[in-house]
């Protein structure tokens, strides 16, 4: 399936691991992050110490300057919409307005000349809160009579999706075996190393405000903030400078950013809020606090025939803009069956409000959880059938394409079985199994865990519309221009923040227009300089912005060819663009590309009636979406005395279609897998029953260091599906999606002699020891 495609694209730059154009400044300390900008004024927030209550009054010290909700009556509230009958649209005020809904909710903003001074005033601010009983746990929030987070709603369910395929009941009833798993995914935090931050400056000459902020989506920030502040959108410029990681947390609109723009407008000075790590852990956005109950029906030969799922996602106190609180629940519902062929599906999936920090997407969104659910279920089912985990997957993975899923998704060409078979061979699995049994004789417990999954990437507007979203962030635009010297500038609506997109886009463009990547400048992250776009998230940018670049570059190429053909007096079909030149095949004449460019601008009379002057084109792309796929394998050793887990090896066999820059692809996988391992073993945000957060420092919330993450073994297949014009598939999230399941399957495999298995994330040493103690008591 890939052979003929490969000849179609002769590539010079695509497919090469060229160095990143982004790196030089960053390794020299010459990057520019939001916190690097000096500001006249600094804002710190007074934040609620209680999870639920009535805010009676706030007293800011006389010596300080500050704002409370009453000062913001002309500012709108954040109210994201989903056009679904099951959606309850709640509003979030910029500062708590009478009601407190989570610990960390901002209740006043203090403005001072330094952050330290502002913090002094924060400490001196008095407030009076009548504490009420909070609801923290998602199941508790669903219970009848539970306190309601928004008192005007009937219950805490803010969104509820349902799937019920015709014929489900009959098929489920026909099952030879039902396998049930009850999954708990404990609350996650994306933890970008740069916390959030915003800097707004008022330009007295133009009256415009420039907001520089750590965001994944500058245009979305502009639209939302201008609307909330009733500011002409043209008067707000949003710049995303260097951004120190986002992972989804920075695609949502923070109320704090709205306030910073307001303060700049009010004071006509520059003002900054740089989030500190404590705020970031408590009150930015969390993710994946989910429960899934799954019943899987199998035929006698271990073929999955129907699945029945009940999913609940704790969305926290509010619904975030633009993605809404439906993102985890609805994506989880749509994509739960994953790479498995099963046509009968019933699911109810709820997004439930609680008195906790609101949710944002976090790398993979709910797919690490649904993959964990399906993969734990498959291993559990394999054990019940007495067959190998590989064997049960062989029987159930999709292998005919295109495949239409039970929820109506179209799976393009992929290699679900092949990637697994490669992993089995490369490990090699048989040797590992021998080692495992040898080690067990000496009281050491090695485990091998597989995870196979699909990663839906690069999906366009229809996919978002299908979720009922009011904003459908699916397309991308690019404005691509060649200047008179022959250099190319592409202005993109997407916004990379660490993914190396400037490098990969320049590779795509270079191959089309005969200019090497170092002569291509990608401009991103400034709403004054770039066409409207959605930013980087959802493994979309290379696919969608890359597609838009390809479209634009092809138009540019066509114009260059037309000009060259005219100048060389040959037919356009006779002209090829090669690195640095346009060449006429028949006559062997050539013209350097800079000469063509100069002609297009400065000798336009030569092209009169043939082409307009200049070399400026637009590219637009809104793809249907595609599925990357991979098999992850974790090899772990569990110390049964301490519950410690050492990840010894981690293998990824990935099919992300055409690799534009393999080095960057591998980097994305490395980082994703590290976060997935952290999700499996280390990281959880913990609340107590009063809604106080117990993990507000990096000594309590535990991102891994180099010692907790193994070196990775990567293999690739490149399936060139026709779902994207670059033949590339997204890769940003896969590492994080597959790894938790592989690690916990491995732990459960290691501890199978004790009859111990895990259905929760993360699996901590304490939980392993508790399970072993329990099993020991049961066995003795």
């Amino acid at each position, binding site marked *: 399936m890939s052979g003929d495609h490969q000849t179609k694209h002769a590539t010079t730059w695509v497919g090469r691991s060229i160095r990143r154009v982004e790196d030089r400044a*960053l390794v020299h300390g010459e990057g520019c992050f939001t916190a690097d900008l000096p500001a006249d004024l600094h804002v710190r927030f007074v934040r609620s110490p209680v999870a639920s209550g009535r805010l009676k009054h706030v007293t800011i010290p006389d010596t300080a300057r500050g704002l409370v909700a009453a000062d913001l009556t002309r500012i709108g509230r954040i109210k994201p919409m989903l056009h679904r009958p099951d959606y309850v649209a709640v509003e979030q005020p910029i500062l708590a307005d009478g009601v407190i809904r989570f610990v960390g909710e901002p209740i006043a903003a203090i403005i001072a000349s330094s952050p330290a001074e502002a913090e002094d005033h924060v400490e001196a601010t008095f407030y009076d809160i009548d504490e009420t009983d909070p609801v923290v746990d998602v199941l508790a929030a669903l219970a009848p009579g539970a306190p309601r987070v928004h008192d005007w709603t009937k219950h805490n369910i803010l969104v509820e999706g349902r799937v019920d395929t015709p014929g489900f009941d009959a098929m489920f009833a026909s099952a030879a075996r039902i396998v049930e798993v009850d999954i708990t995914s404990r609350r996650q935090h994306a933890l970008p190393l740069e916390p959030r931050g915003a800097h707004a400056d008022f330009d007295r000459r133009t009256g415009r405000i420039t907001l520089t902020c750590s965001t994944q989506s500058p245009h979305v920030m502009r639209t939302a903030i201008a609307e909330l502040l009733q500011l002409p959108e043209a008067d707000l410029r949003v710049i995303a400078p260097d951004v120190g990681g986002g992972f989804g947390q920075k695609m949502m609109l923070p109320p704090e950013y709205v306030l910073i723009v307001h303060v700049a407008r009010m004071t006509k000075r520059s003002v900054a809020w740089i989030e500190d790590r404590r705020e970031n852990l408590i009150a930015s956005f969390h993710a994946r606090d989910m429960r899934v109950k799954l019943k899987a029906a199998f035929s006698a030969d271990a073929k999955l025939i129907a699945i029945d799922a009940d999913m609940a996602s704790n969305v926290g106190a509010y619904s975030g803009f633009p993605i809404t609180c439906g993102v985890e629940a609805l994506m989880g519902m749509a994509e739960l069956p994953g790479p498995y062929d099963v046509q009968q599906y019933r699911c109810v999936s709820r997004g439930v409000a609680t008195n906790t920090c609101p949710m944002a997407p976090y790398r993979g969104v709910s797919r690490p959880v649904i993959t964990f659910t399906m993969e734990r279920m498959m291993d559990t089912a394999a054990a019940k059938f007495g067959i190998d985990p590989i064997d049960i997957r062989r029987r159930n993975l999709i292998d005919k394409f295109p495949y239409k899923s039970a929820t109506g998704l179209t799976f393009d060409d992929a290699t679900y079985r092949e990637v697994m078979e490669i992993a089995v061979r490369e490990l090699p699995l048989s040797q590992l199994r021998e080692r495992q049994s040898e080690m067990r004789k000496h009281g050491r417990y090695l485990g091998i865990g597989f995870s196979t999954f699909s990663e839906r990437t690069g999906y366009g507007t229809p996919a978002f519309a299908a979720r009922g979203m009011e904003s459908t962030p699916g397309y991308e635009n690019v404005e691509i221009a060649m200047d008179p010297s022959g250099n190319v500038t592409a202005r993109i609506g997407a916004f990379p923040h*660490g993914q190396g997109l400037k490098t990969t886009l320049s590779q795509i463009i270079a191959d089309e227009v005969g200019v090497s990547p170092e002569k291509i400048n990608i401009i991103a992250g400034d709403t004054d300089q770039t066409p409207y776009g959605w930013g980087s998230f959802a493994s979309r940018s290379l696919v969608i912005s890359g597609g838009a670049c390809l479209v634009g570059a092809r138009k540019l190429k066509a114009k260059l060819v037309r000009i060259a053909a005219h100048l060389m007096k040959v037919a356009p079909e006779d002209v090829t663009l090669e690195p640095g030149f346009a060449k006429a095949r028949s006559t062997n004449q050539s013209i350097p590309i800079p000469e063509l460019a100069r002609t297009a601008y400065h000798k336009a009379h030569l092209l009169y009636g043939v082409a307009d002057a200049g070399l400026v084109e637009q590219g637009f792309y809104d793809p249907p979406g595609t599925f990357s796929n991979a098999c992850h394998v974790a090899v772990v050793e569990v110390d049964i005395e301490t519950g410690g887990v050492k990840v010894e090896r981690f293998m990824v066999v990935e099919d992300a279609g055409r690799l534009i820059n393999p080095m960057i692809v591998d980097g994305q996988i*490395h*980082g994703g897998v*590290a976060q997935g391992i952290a999700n499996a073993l280390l990281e959880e945000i913990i609340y107590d029953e009063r809604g106080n957060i117990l993990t507000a420092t990096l000594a309590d919330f535990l991102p891994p260091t180099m010692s907790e993450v193994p070196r990775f073994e990567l293999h690739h297949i490149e399936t060139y599906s026709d779902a994207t014009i670059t033949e590339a598939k997204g890769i940003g999230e896969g590492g994080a999606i597959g790894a938790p399941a592989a690690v916990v399957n491995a732990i459960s495999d290691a501890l199978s002699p004790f009859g111990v298995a895990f259905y929760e994330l993360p699996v901590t040493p304490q939980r392993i020891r508790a399970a072993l103690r329990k099993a020991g008591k049961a066995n003795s």
Partner: protein
Amino acid sequence: MTDRHDIDLHINGDIYRVSVEARKTLADAIRDDCGLTGTHIGCEHGVCGACTVLLNDQPVRSCLMFAVQAKDKPIRTVEGLAKGDTPHALQQAFMDNHGLQCGFCTPGFLMLAAGALEAKPDMSEEEMVHVLSSNLCRCTGYHNILKSVKAAAAEMAKAR
């Protein structure tokens, strides 16, 4: 109440005369008062290592010192790593081996590795992992950071 101190900070061979409150951390002073924003602040409680600088040629967390404590002592930051237009071997290795993505942790890792390699040029891989576990990176999964530091160590050994 303010307790201000006029001090000299010696950074990358330059002297910065600054007036700081006693409570100002070295990290904040380097960034705000000296304008050297390559040193990043990621946690302000000594865990992430983004603010790592060399003090007396030794890697330290600049968020865990007050600026007044560093007066008159030689400090090196990421801005002082390259020699003119020639990147330091570590900077080159990070670029060659994709040792960074968002780049926020990078200055801290560079200074940590520079200090460690200057003190012990022949670290084993195990020792490198031990040392590099001092800092957090959220993008790379550390694979290519280790690769970069190994490559730089080899390059630095050649240059000796």
